[in-house]
């Protein structure tokens, strides 16, 4: 589970109810691109072996090619870890008190948005498309009364269940706050 203490000031009684990120199938799509790019130098090696074999064994050309290939794979590997971090650290958290959207953009940028459960007005789930229907993932839209009208959980697993659970949590939060207000209004 993501370390919440590094992101927000957690209240003493606050608990993480669930944590979500986009479906892994979307990250898999990016891994396919990585494999295609990784296979490119191997394809070139095969082509050069047939067309111009001397370039692969020349005393000058061989070290140059080795260094170029090595640099290419190092850059590709950096691309992989950047994509992984982008996917893995992009999370949605629902606690007993609020909703958090931690958005990782590349390696050096992160945005954390939070929304108090008491401000949630409406929650909508949406599953659109063949792949999303088959694998049961989609978007959850949270409507609020604030300036940022919509909070979106993009491509999360079981959006319908999340919507139901979120509405229950909103209801629980309202009850809790009502009890606190009643407690405060009681004559001493």
């Amino acid at each position: 589970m993501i370390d919440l203490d590094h992101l927000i000031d957690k209240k003493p009684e606050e608990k993480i109810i669930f944590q979500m990120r986009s479906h892994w199938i979307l990250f898999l799509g990016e891994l396919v691109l990585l494999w295609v790019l990784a296979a490119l130098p191997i394809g070139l090696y095969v082509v050069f072996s047939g067309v111009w074999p001397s370039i692969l064994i020349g005393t000058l050309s061989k070290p140059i090619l080795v260094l170029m290939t090595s640099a290419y794979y190092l850059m590709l590997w950096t691309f992989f870890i950047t994509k992984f971090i982008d996917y893995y650290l992009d999370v949605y958290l629902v606690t007993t008190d609020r909703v958090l959207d931690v958005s990782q953009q590349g390696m050096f940028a992160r945005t954390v948005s939070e929304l108090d459960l008491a401000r949630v007005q409406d929650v909508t789930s949406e599953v659109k498309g063949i792949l999303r229907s088959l694998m049961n993932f989609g978007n959850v839209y949270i409507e609020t009364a604030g300036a940022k009208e919509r909070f979106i959980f993009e491509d999360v697993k079981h959006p319908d269940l999340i919507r139901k659970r979120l509405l229950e949590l909103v209801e629980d939060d309202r009850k809790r706050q009502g009890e606190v207000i009643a407690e405060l209004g009681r004559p001493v």
Partner: protein
Amino acid sequence: MLSFPLSLILIPYGIIVLIFIFLAAYSVHNLVRYGATTNSSFAATFAFLAGAVFVFFFTWQGLRGTDWSQQITFGGSLTGVTTSPSGL
């Protein structure tokens, strides 16, 4: 004709390696700081570091026996002397 030693091409490669090391260290730091408690985070960090070791090992293997004092000449032969078809 203008020529320079082969060892000069190690400079741009060294710069790429330094950038890679910086980005790798920062990535691992990010993963450890925010998501170290899961198996997938650990697996990705391990795969990344293992992959990097793999690339460096094969680079070292491919460069073994290279004569870095050779001169690259503009307009000269691109391949240099052709050796036996082993390695790479």
